[in-house]
């Protein structure tokens, strides 16, 4: 995931825009799922997160405290999903 340093994050969107990328991984609809931030306890829809779009993937941050909740990367060698900052997801 080192490829996604802050310098690569060239634009900010809504979590909803990552739906296509994330839906390649999740079976249930992901943007309406409730996600909870481990750092501040914020809970809201994945579609309401702040999305920082990078060339090969996306970083989704908490709209309340800016903690990183999800990092998703789509490379020729596979899909990566890191969710260290997330306490839970509820579908």
């Amino acid at each position: 995931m080192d490829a996604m340093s802050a310098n690569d994050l060239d634009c900010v969107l809504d979590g909803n825009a990552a739906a296509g990328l994330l839906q390649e991984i999740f079976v249930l609809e992901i943007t309406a799922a409730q996600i909870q931030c481990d750092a501040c306890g914020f809970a809201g829809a994945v579609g309401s997160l702040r999305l920082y779009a990078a060339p090969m993937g996306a970083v989704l941050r908490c709209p309340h405290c800016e903690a990183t909740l999800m990092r998703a990367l789509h490379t020729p060698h596979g899909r990566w999903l890191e969710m260290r900052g997330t306490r839970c997801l509820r579908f």
Partner: protein
Amino acid sequence: MTEIETIAAPARRLEWQAVEVREIIVETFRVKSLLLHAPRWQGHLPGQHVDIRLTAEDGYQAQRSYSIASPPEDDLLALTVEKVDDGEVSPYLVDDLRAGDRFELRGPIGGYFVWTVATPGPLSLIAGGSGIAPLMTMLRHRARRNVRNPALLLYSSRSLEDVIYREELDAMARGDPHLRVVHTLTRKQPEGWTGHRRRIDRELLAEASFPPEQAPKIFVCGPTSLVEAAASLLVDLGHDPLEIKTERFGPSGWTP
């Protein structure tokens, strides 16, 4: 959690499918709507989007997301595309594509930025430029189902010539006393224009939109600057941040 859970059906596996262009509608001098025949389409909800993928002869692929502009009730799937001059995909879609051409798409995608007639309460839609597309789907869906919940569209365009779906919106508003369409033209106004002529600001939002006590469902779609300004002003005005759903324009170059 109420309506979101009831309408967000489990996603099907996202698979690419070939679609055929049946008709092309010129909306403005830089915007066209593509009406597509998608034989394997299984329906969608107003506000959802699709990914489209173009493949060059040498195998190079480019992928972009577009909001669906047609309501679930229509047979053909409509995408409204604005030409971005230095774009990789939109110039092809707007200038080169012809009826009978085919390309690939997958969808519907996204269950968050979604409104259906089953959602209670007033509907407040705020659009900038081609951000009107997913909101128009909601209005078309509402019209097809003859639903009479109070609805508002506050629509910011550069000039009257840039207003997408102008005639259809006029006709919709004329035939529906519960729908209000408020235009603001930010750069150029026709002679005799009596409407608004400035960017969406606090006063315009306070005047046009439903008061927070009515708990409207709010959808904002457009360029990032408009979306962020409108969303924070709405929160200032007392609206519940959880009832304000935003969709910023994707950048022309993002290909996840």
